[in-house]
């Protein structure tokens, strides 16, 4: 009895929200279509193409893996964005450029290390400005990559602390919009400071080729998918960092304080939580993760340009919003979903529209479920 009541109540709830039903229907259609495509069945009654067609299992696996890799990175970068949103209550438009700063500083350090380990012949200036052939890989010089990752984290932490001191601290409690506008100014200044030093050139940084970058090939039903050592490193590093964040939030006093602050700032302050110190910790964690995410993205992509972080920012926002803005686990989950969805979308739409699909998902989520997919629990 109770169960039926519950069910009918739920059905009535859905009927009240036709958009949700429509969305569920669309997703269901896509799943059936994907199954038909994989089976190679095409349904065309009266010559009208309804669903099905043909798609290789191996390409679906490829989309899935690429999406997962992209999603992990978006999730990692989104953690910081979500944290600053929940602790400081503003959408930080400079977050994408923290990734860029992390990537540039990290890769410059990598090449300086590689100058010694690989014995590069170019002068120091050219190496620092990354105007050299791309030679660094985790196989040829693991030390360079590790040092690069550490420098990326350190440099971006130092930068966000400086920015907090100069820009955001004088504006505490000024409301979300003035801070948002200020962060747009910070984003512009950061991006073009990088241009001032490193110019607008896009450069390759990681070595390619089998001897410097081994790849493992997975055989699936009708083809193969190969994953290289950089992608593997990236997955391992991203997952490790995410577990680290989880441990930090759940099992340390700092984590508890952050969750308390995200929940109710005034109450946290009254309870004696040193709010300024928690804010600093938030910036350190968020900035450090952003810097490392930036470095790791370039490890996977291989090319570095001054505006990649800015271009990725909206993607990161999509993930964070999908997971429920303010929630760290939501940011990770939402990032992975957005990553996979944007790659899987390529089965149906041309590649130029992958980002359009991701942004549309973001807008739809904001419209119909602004609290995010996971219910919007703001657990920092």
């Amino acid at each position, binding site marked *: 009895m109770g169960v039926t009541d519950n069910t009918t109540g739920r059905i009535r709830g859905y009927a009240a929200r036709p958009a949700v039903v429509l969305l569920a229907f669309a997703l269901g259609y896509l799943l059936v279509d994907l199954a038909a495509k994989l089976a190679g069945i095409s349904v065309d009654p009266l010559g009208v193409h309804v669903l099905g067609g043909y798609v290789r299992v191996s390409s679906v696996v490829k989309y899935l893996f690429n999406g997962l890799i992209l999603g992990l990175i978006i999730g990692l970068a989104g953690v910081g964005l979500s944290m600053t949103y929940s602790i400081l209550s503003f959408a930080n438009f400079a977050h994408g450029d923290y990734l860029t700063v992390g990537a540039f500083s990290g890769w410059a350090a990598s090449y300086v290390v590689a100058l010694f380990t690989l014995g590069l012949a170019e002068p120091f200036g050219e190496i620092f400005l990354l105007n050299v052939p791309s030679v660094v890989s985790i196989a040829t010089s693991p030390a360079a990559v590790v040092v690069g990752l550490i420098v990326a984290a350190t440099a971006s932490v130092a930068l966000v602390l400086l920015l907090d001191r100069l820009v955001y601290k004088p504006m505490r409690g000024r409301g979300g919009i003035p801070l948002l506008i200020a962060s747009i100014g910070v984003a512009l200044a950061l991006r073009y400071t990088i241009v001032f030093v490193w110019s607008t050139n896009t450069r390759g940084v990681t070595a390619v080729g089998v001897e410097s970058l081994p790849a493992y090939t997975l055989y699936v039903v009708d083809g193969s998918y190969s994953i290289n050592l950089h992608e593997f490193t990236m997955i391992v590093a991203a997952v490790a960092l995410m577990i680290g964040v989880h441990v930090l939030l759940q099992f340390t006093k700092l984590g508890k304080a952050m969750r308390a602050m995200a929940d109710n700032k005034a109450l946290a302050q009254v309870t004696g939580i040193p709010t300024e110190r928690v804010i600093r910790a938030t910036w350190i964690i968020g900035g450090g993760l952003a810097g490392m995410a930036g470095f790791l993205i370039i490890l996977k992509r291989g090319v570095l340009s001054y505006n990649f972080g800015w271009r990725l920012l909206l993607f990161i926002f999509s993930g964070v919003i999908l997971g429920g803005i303010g929630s760290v686990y939501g940011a990770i989950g939402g990032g992975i979903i957005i990553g996979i969805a944007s790659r899987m979308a390529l089965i149906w739409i041309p590649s130029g529209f992958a980002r359009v699909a991701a942004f549309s998902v*973001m807008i739809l989520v904001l419209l119909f479920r602004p609290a995010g997919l996971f219910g919007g629990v703001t657990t920092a």
Partner: protein
Amino acid sequence: MSVGGRLWQAVPPVIREHDTRLIVAILVVVSITYMLLGGLQAYLASESNLLNAMVNSMRFILLTAIAYALLTLALNLHWGYTGLFNIGIAGFMAVGAYATYILAAPPGGRPAPGLGLPVPVAILGGMVAAAIVGGIVALPALQLDADYFAIVTVGFSEIVRLSIQDSTFSGTVQDPNLDTYNVVNLFGAEFGTGGGRGIQAPIGPPTDVLFEGTTAVGQPLIDLGASYGIGQPVVTGMTYVVFLGILVLPAYYVVSQRLGNSPFGRVLKAIREDETVAQSLGKDTRWFKIKVFMLGAAMMGLAGILWRGRAGYINPQSFRPLITFYVFTALIIGGAGSNTGSVIGAIAFTSLLLNGPRRVAGVIDSAAGGLPSPSNFYVALSSLDPAMYAGYLVSEISALKFIFVGIVIVWLMQNRPEGMLGHRKEIASSIDLSERPETESGGGVAATDGGVSDE
């Protein structure tokens, strides 16, 4: 008193206390400054035709300033009046301009075919398209907080840019037998966006009519220019700028001003201050938001057509998201909520921040007789030579300009979030109560009030 305050007090009251005169005076000052800068640069580069360079420099700065003023006025309707945080300005400009170009481009044209409609119809269509899209984008604003809405609008403008950039709808391959055929066919109407290759249409400045053949107005102007050594492109360009300055800009200004003072505008301001209060007074705030958003979007679309689309060719690069932030900076400088502030902010932004550094760098470069140009940052830094430093700064002025813009945004948000003219009192009632004549009971109070409102 601060330096700014002193400068402000030095302006004659005849100009200071009259908004239109103030705007015209600032435009004149900017024009003269840029004529001198342009002339100086041409003189230092020992060009022969000084006057041509001077007028061209003035034409360029006025065109940019007026274009930004149009966009800033439109944004002021959204952000200044209603508090709708729209950072998708470039998207609305693109929708307006692309709709116009697709409607006006000849069928079978290159790089993309269009519908071949007359230009005035196409421009109207472009504005309607921008308004409709604006209405759709405004829907999230009905239920979202300002920062979420900001993300929606920036996402929208990216969707527009990516969609017109992609080759799927570009119409560049017009042979239906080819696999790559990509003309959009909507109920028999075939068109395309041109993708990355842009789109062409027979659209030009409306003032060009004056110069077709030997007309009564155009020919004397060209002759006059020629007698001072000013080339015909500069003369026609300058005529268009004059057209924008004395017809379009005042039209935008008057529309915004009258809207702001109307009952409709007062509801908008009420929404900005406290939406719940406006609702409790029986106003359906949702419709007000949608309407003002549509109007502002149409104005942005028209500005996109008149500015970016003036030369018969547009491409996705003409509508980069940076323009959005430029317009926002201009509005913040001027003071959100004030129409005069919007225009002055746009002029200040374009003349001081957007073009100023480049002009000054050009003059310095010419004056120094060609500074050394270090190939990169490290070469410059390690040279320990001031000339090399100067040379690098001058050669990288375009990057420095953005850094200045960023710093100015942060500085304004920290120290003067209300902008230059944001300190002025907003008159909520239809009668100016602050200037009430002395009455028998509250004479003293009225006098102090009057004293404050003079500032």
